[in-house]
């Protein structure tokens, strides 16, 4: 997703004029939020499909409100793990409001183009060897590392910590912070700091700080969690907090957003995946 932002701004390698946003929480997912906002402003058209008035929804020209998961069928989920299973979602109630399921919206929007659609019968192993390839001849032919090796990332500069992020079992991505019962359990996130490091810095568990990254971007106030559970050179926060949209009535203004602090990222040249744990932050005492 983050690789779509640059073409929106520069038109290279191809122009992007419009965006249909579904199942992505744009301003909490893509690093360098100010750049994302500039890119949104540069587009001709933005369509947002969502169940919540999330931060990015306010940027859309057209909003198609989706039915919640309790009110819709969803794609059949077929999982081919060691124990394969199929999961089917069925609506428990009719939609309470004038909303439609995502698949219905997609079908209606796709109808004019259905004639152009052809079934894709690709084999699961479309490699040159027709086998699962650990050493990829295709990558070698493209001049890339055929068997990728570990490349160390730079350490945090003095006085800074590597910013890590992750999940809590209570919240799902940036979606559930406004849900009453989950909000009551975990209304805001904390910034985890090694307890020995915190005491050296004169910070106590529960103190409020702002987190400032290497580019001077500062988060909203967030509490210190002094814990033995983190290495001394890193800090950690649960993803999904720091909502700005006033429509997120409970979650709005609570905790800090890791996405806001990720103004830099490292790009994997092969997969295009973004490494976001390359941002360094320091803790500024809230006065």
């Amino acid at each position: 997703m983050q690789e779509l932002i640059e073409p929106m701004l520069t038109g290279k390698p191809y122009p992007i004029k419009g965006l249909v946003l579904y199942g992505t929480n744009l301003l909490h997912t893509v690093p360098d939020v100010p750049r994302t906002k500039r890119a949104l402003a540069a587009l001709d058209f933005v369509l947002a499909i969502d169940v919540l008035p999330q931060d990015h929804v306010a940027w859309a020209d057209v909003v198609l409100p989706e039915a919640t998961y309790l009110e819709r069928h969803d794609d059949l989920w077929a999982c081919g793990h060691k124990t394969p299973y199929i999961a089917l979602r069925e609506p428990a109630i009719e939609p309470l409001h004038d909303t439609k399921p995502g698949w219905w919206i997609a079908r209606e929007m796709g109808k004019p183009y259905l004639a152009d659609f052809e079934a894709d019968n690709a084999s699961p192993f479309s490699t040159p060897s027709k086998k699962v390839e650990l050493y990829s001849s295709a990558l070698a032919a493209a001049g890339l590392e055929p068997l990728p090796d570990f490349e160390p990332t730079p350490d945090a500069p003095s006085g800074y910590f590597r910013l890590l992020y992750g999940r809590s079992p209570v919240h799902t991505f940036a979606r559930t912070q406004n849900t009453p019962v989950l909000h009551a359990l975990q209304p805001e996130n904390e910034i985890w700091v090694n307890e020995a490091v915190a005491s050296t810095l004169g910070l106590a568990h529960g103190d409020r700080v702002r987190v400032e990254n290497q580019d001077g971007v500062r988060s909203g106030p967030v509490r210190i969690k002094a814990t033995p559970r983190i290495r001394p050179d890193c800090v950690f926060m649960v993803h999904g907090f720091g909502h700005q949209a006033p429509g997120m009535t409970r979650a709005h203004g609570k905790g800090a957003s890791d996405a806001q602090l990720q103004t830099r990222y490292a790009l994997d040249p092969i997969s295009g995946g973004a490494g976001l744990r390359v941002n360094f932050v320091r803790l500024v005492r809230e006065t």
Partner: protein
Amino acid sequence: VARYAFAIDLDRCIGCQACVVACRTGHEIPAGETFITVSDIVRGQAPRLWGSFAHQRCFHCAAAPCVTVCPTRALTKWNGLTAVDQDRCSGCGYCTDACPFDVPSLTDKRVWKCSACVDLVRDGASPWCAETCPSQAISFGERTDVLAGARTRVAALKRRHPNAQLYGETELGGLGLLTILLDRPSVYGLPEDPKIPGMLTVWQRAVQPVTTGLSALAAAVMGVMFVVARRRHVREETDRA
């Protein structure tokens, strides 16, 4: 008569709080109250850490001190479980003082405490927490079955966790909530040997019988007084006549 019990397996608990959410939703618990609190316990320093989860909730004691002190029968025992009838609660708070585990609390002058979903259990269903737990850490059923299952688990866990033990088999007459601990009770903030508060024993053994005795005595005196007064009255009437 059935005797029900829960078992919580702390080797299986993943700390996800789904039991808390199911309980809050099922019972429409007001903000600020909860019947279950799950907190994490950590020892050591990264990356050498030991962690587990502590569950703070009603232990459903067989000899439940809260039931003993409750003057309005808002707290009662039902098939091994400690049930709550909020409509009968006067908000006196005796139960909050009596509980050795600091479980009951008062909000809006009513007691708030896990009632083991007795309404659901009466209908043959399981309590919300046991029904919801995604890692099958919470089991519920006949105490003898639950106890047998818990003992088997502790025996198996001893290989990985030498201090693993079952909490609640005999404590306070046998708890209705058995906990499979990975370490000593004190690690989880639990009393190693929970006791009914001393004053409560006094209350139960001395004050209650004495007050009952005094009430009986008062009634007897009243009776005698009545007879005496009646006699006098009759005599006065006779004298006047």
